[in-house]
């Protein structure tokens, strides 16, 4: 599904070089739920950006869904992002001037679906996240948890092969975080591959596997986790 071999990422500014990722390798199989943890500045976000084709890497090989994406053009990357990847951001990144329906509609328009198909998909995913009755509301009229649910609906509307979540509960209180994590877990159970970046070890344990990044490298090997008990811990916290 996702295969990174010796990926390096170097940011250059004047005479300063910053190695965000160093010979980073990772394999993620279809249907997996992988959490990526690490301290600030360890390279989590850089990994996420490269995994989501938001940034080009400096060196290495990256195959997504069996396709080498190292040499894709900008517009090809856009098309791959649109078709195969769903994004969930820490700050939700909803468009404040658009209602929920139009927000979820954004990636579907880029996909070129007709209006009937878009409407069907939007209603379905908003139903899935429990916000079908509020599709004419603006993001500012929703709670943080609800906004993140809309963002998840937006990510799912295009039925992507895998979901990239960047600190999806970072801006939420514990109850809302639990609700969002339950939704993400449910999405994973339905077959979507998920990679979630988080600095919260408790949330990381909810994934089937945890990858810890330190100084741009995988530091813990790939550790399997026990998701269900920890989900209960979060629920009782």
């Amino acid at each position, binding site marked *: 599904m996702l295969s990174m071999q010796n990926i390096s990422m170097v940011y250059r500014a004047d005479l300063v070089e910053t190695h965000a990722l160093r010979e980073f390798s990772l394999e993620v199989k279809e249907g997996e739920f992988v959490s990526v943890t690490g301290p600030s500045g360890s390279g989590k*976000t850089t990994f*996420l*950006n490269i995994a*989501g*084709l*938001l*940034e080009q890497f400096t060196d290495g090989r990256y195959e997504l869904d069996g396709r080498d994406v190292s040499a894709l053009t*900008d*517009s090809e*990357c*856009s*098309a791959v*992002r*649109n*078709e195969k990847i769903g*994004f969930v*951001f*820490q*700050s939700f*990144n909803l*468009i404040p*001037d*658009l*209602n929920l329906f*139009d927000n979820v*509609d*954004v*990636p579907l*328009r*880029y*996909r070129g679906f007709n209006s009937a198909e878009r409407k069907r998909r939007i209603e379905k995913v908003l139903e899935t996240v429990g916000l079908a009755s509020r599709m004419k509301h*603006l993001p500012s009229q929703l709670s943080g948890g609800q906004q993140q649910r809309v963002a998840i609906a*937006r990510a799912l509307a*295009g039925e992507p092969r895998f979901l990239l979540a*960047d600190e999806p509960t970072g801006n939420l209180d514990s109850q809302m975080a639990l609700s969002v994590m339950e939704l993400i877990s449910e999405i994973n159970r339905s077959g979507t591959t998920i990679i979630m970046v988080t600095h919260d070890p408790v949330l990381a344990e909810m994934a089937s596997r945890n990858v810890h990044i330190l100084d741009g490298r995988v530091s813990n090997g790939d550790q399997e986790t026990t998701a269900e008990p920890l989900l209960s811990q979060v629920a009782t916290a």
Partner: protein
Amino acid sequence: MEIGPIWRAMMRNKTGAILIALQIAVTMAIMVNAISIMQEKDRMMSRPSGLDEHNLFSIASVGFAKDFNERVTIEEDLAALRAMPGIVNAIQSNAVPLSGSGWSMGLQTEPGAEIDGTGVGLYFVDEHGLDTYGVNLLAGENFSASDVAWRERAATEWPDKTIITRAMAEAMFPDDWASALGKTVYIADTQPITITGIVEKMQGSWPGWDGFERVMLVPTHTLFGATVYLIRTEPGMRDSVMPQVEELLADRNKDRIVRSMRSMDEIRERSYRSESSMIKILTFTIVLLIAITSLGIVGLASFSVNRRTRQIGTRRALGASKLVILRYFMTENFIISLGGVLLGAALTVGLNILMIETFSLTRITWYLVPVAMLLLLAVGQIAVFGPARRASSVPPAVATRTV
């Protein structure tokens, strides 16, 4: 196309868009009406005079000595001028067409002080007048030498013949202008004068007068102390002949001064100077307005791009290509500009009606409105292209930045 979402998003944040649309509307209203005024001025300036303008020039002669013999001077000057190589013909007259200085009278078809005459510009000429002007005689005949009288400043008697322009004939005999030939009309209320010729076109001295093309020629030499000679040269020889004429006249008689030598082209240029200045000022105003409007569009679009950097990054992350982002901002501007030009079309017509009623201007030509709409839409698209291109270069990784 994302017209629906763009429109809905714009309606939630509409102040800037409305202000730009209003600016476009006002620009369009001013621009179209200014162009209409310019067209009117251009039409005015482009009216053919009927004269052989490029080969004509005038020079004034003013006697000042106590024993200055004006009649002899005029006769000798004309003989010398007509004999000069490069000169086709020359006349003495009271005024020069388009010069802003002249003589007008009224002609009426019936005698009587109580009858309103038709205003007409008047030139005193001799039998060389038609040839010197280079005008086309449509009907009748030229004056003969015996028709020409000498007139003192205080004289009140008028010759019994006149040649008028077709425009004057049409004004006096609207049903059949050609029937004016041979008709006796009345000048100075009661003095009969017979129309012996009709020329195709000639212009009076005052371009702004509505009777500008109503002209009559009267076979008379004037003895007013100051006079003007109008001289027609062989084609292409005017500029070389002019200084020779000035020297000739100055040398021939020291009891007068020779001054104000001007080519007909210069006279035309001086005559329409205010019109051409107005065209330049209005052109500058239009360019300035378009530039200000463009800057407004650039400003709004730049502000919008800066404000929405995260949003653009998110759109890119969700699959928008650079082209899609470029198109988004171009479409947004198109919608704003379209609103502006539609409002502008209504404002343009309203302003034109107001100007017709207030300043008696002419109605705008119909095609100016759609042309201006297209122009301003194009200006909007060009102005927004830079900011839109900058928006399209926002990287998708911006979406994951937390600051």
